[in-house]
């Protein structure tokens, strides 16, 4: 997943939010109910739970929480969460979120994407949303494979890995989504695993609380396709493997790969948010709230 190209200094003195986990009964209020189509052993459900725990820990108004997702296994989160949800087209979630955030800066937008959704078909939107520092949180469920369509190779499938479209081993090099987002200008970049659940909650909460474009990569397991075709591990075995392979960023040494990858807050910086920069543009254009007499003083309306 990574090599010496990754430049990660130790995280700065950025203070992470305090988080707490909630009981299933407390969390259930934010679930719509009904059947999930995620396979047994899939860790998407754990990441979903982590997202609700993160939102509740931050004590933000649930009415203002909007989850905008793309297409694929991860995108189905919009059916399960009892927030305002938008299930967009494949790859377009970040572009839709950009419009929604600029039109109403009060929205707390979490954009949920799979790895193919985010880094292949939606890769262009990822780098540009990061470049603009649009104040949304990109939560990427990375299972290294296209699950919804039945197990094809994607942009994060490791070289030589097998899939339904790489029966002789993947001939392509994988993207590291965190490196990609960091290079494109994301001002908060983190990676977590369902195995280290509480840390994952904190990394997601930190991303939502962050003022600017935050990227949180949640390593997710697909035992149905990825595991079956590669590691031969079952769901529990894949979760256990996360423990072996995920190394806290402070201790991670680039180049000592062997399937290991750094987790934690990988990058953090402050830079004006696009909504704030654009508010200045409005001032320079001569706009004063309420001046046009339409009675609506909210920006963007």
């Amino acid at each position: 997943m990574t090599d010496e190209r990754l430049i990660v200094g130790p995280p700065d003195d950025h203070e992470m939010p305090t988080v707490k986990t909630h009981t299933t009964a407390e969390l259930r209020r934010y679930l719509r109910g009904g059947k999930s189509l995620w396979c047994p052993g899939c860790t998407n459900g754990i990441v979903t739970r982590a997202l609700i725990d993160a939102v509740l820990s931050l004590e933000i108004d649930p009415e203002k929480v909007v989850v905008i997702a793309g297409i694929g296994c991860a995108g189905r989160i919009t059916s399960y969460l009892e927030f305002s949800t938008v299930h967009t087209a494949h790859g377009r979630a970040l572009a839709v979120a950009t419009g929604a955030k600029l039109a109403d800066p009060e929205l707390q937008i979490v954009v949920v994407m799979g790895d193919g959704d985010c880094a292949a078909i939606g890769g262009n939107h990822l780098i540009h949303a990061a470049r603009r520092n649009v104040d949304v949180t990109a939560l990427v469920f990375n299972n290294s494979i296209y699950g919804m369509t039945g197990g094809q190779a994607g942009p994060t499938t490791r070289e030589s890995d097998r899939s339904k479209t790489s029966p002789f081993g993947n001939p392509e090099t994988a993207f590291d989504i965190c490196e990609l987002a960091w290079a494109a200008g994301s001002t908060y970049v983190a990676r977590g695993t369902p195995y280290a659940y509480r840390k994952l909650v904190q990394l997601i909460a930190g991303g939502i609380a962050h003022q600017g474009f935050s990227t949180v990569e949640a390593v997710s397991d697909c035992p149905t396709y990825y595991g079956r075709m590669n590691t031969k591990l079952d769901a529990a075995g894949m979760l256990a493997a996360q423990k072996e392979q995920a190394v806290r960023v402070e201790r991670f040494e680039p180049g000592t790969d062997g399937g290991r990858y750094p987790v934690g807050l990988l990058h953090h910086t402050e830079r004006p948010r696009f909504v704030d920069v654009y508010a200045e543009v409005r001032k320079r254009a001569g706009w004063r709230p309420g001046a046009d007499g339409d009675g609506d003083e909210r920006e963007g309306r």
Partner: protein
Amino acid sequence: MAQPRRLVQGNEAVAEGAITAGARFFAGYPITPSTEIAEALSARMPAVGGTFIQMEDEIASIAAVIGASLAGTKALTATSGPGFSLMQEMIGYATMTQVPCVIVDVMRGGPSTGLPTEPAQGDVMQARWGTHGEHSIIALVPSSVHECYTLTVDAFNLAEQFRTPVILLSDAMLGHMREAVALPDRDELRIAERVDPDIDPADYDTVGSTIDNILPRPALGSPYRVHVTGLVYDPISGAPATASPRVAGDLGGYLREKIYHHHGAITRVEDFMMEGAEVAIFAYGSVARAARAVVRWARQAGVPVGMVRPITLWPFPVEAVDHMAEQVRTVIVPEMNLKQIAWEVQAAVGGRAKVVDHGRVDGQLITPQEIAELVKKEFYYHRFD
């Protein structure tokens, strides 16, 4: 009160129309010959408290427009052929999810990069059927700078009323042409505003009721829990319901009927000197300007010719064509494509009158002289019938 008379470009008129309609969000990507709309709105939007954003491509542009509209803001994008092609998937998304928005397509020669600076009308069928799957759409065709302004306002009104994307089909000539116009002010025009549902948030269903002939669309972040998906969805909960043929069939029917059932309120057609006409010219957009000149010449010479000009191209004004077919013996359809609308006219005429098509795809305008030749033939042959 109308604004003072001044020289305005077609693309500028579209931008001003959007501001007048209350649009406060524009997302776009530079493309000839629509770019002036983006340029104008990059200055106008922030000045009225709105947002202009230049996105990374046209797919992102229409996606951002949909996002802004879901957040409660009237929004538009403007593009031309290649960009319009890129937007098709998300236009379908907006029809499925019932998101009001306006897409301006300043048509240029195609296919592909084609003739970037020359006018064409080659996108009229793409406007109707460009996105995949069964759907309905509203498309308006201005034929003057004044209409570039007023029809942009109408496009927003229809988008809000029917909770649907509306396409404004301009072209390279109209977009770049300047005319002296006195544009009406906001208070002289009907402006349809976004409405919230009038039911308790707890009882809210996605399709909802009609309020003053407008379909409500609650905004993201409002007390109405919004659940939007491009999958076939249950009209009450908004949740995916792909396993139910009944729900899928009903939704498909609803999305069509909410437009077609009201086509009388949507469709606008101008009859020009049709009284006693034996031959009608069926022309739209910039071609209608040439056709109008021909009708004037012909009438001065005592030749009974009129023009029927669709202002709404989709839904197709079948009733107007029906009426025309009962009156005239020949319908001439000049257009800057090869028979796209002539086929549609032929289907609606149903053999009751002769349909003469005339197309150009060389990037040149259809001249009044060209149309006059077609008219002359109709009267010449008629004499020897």
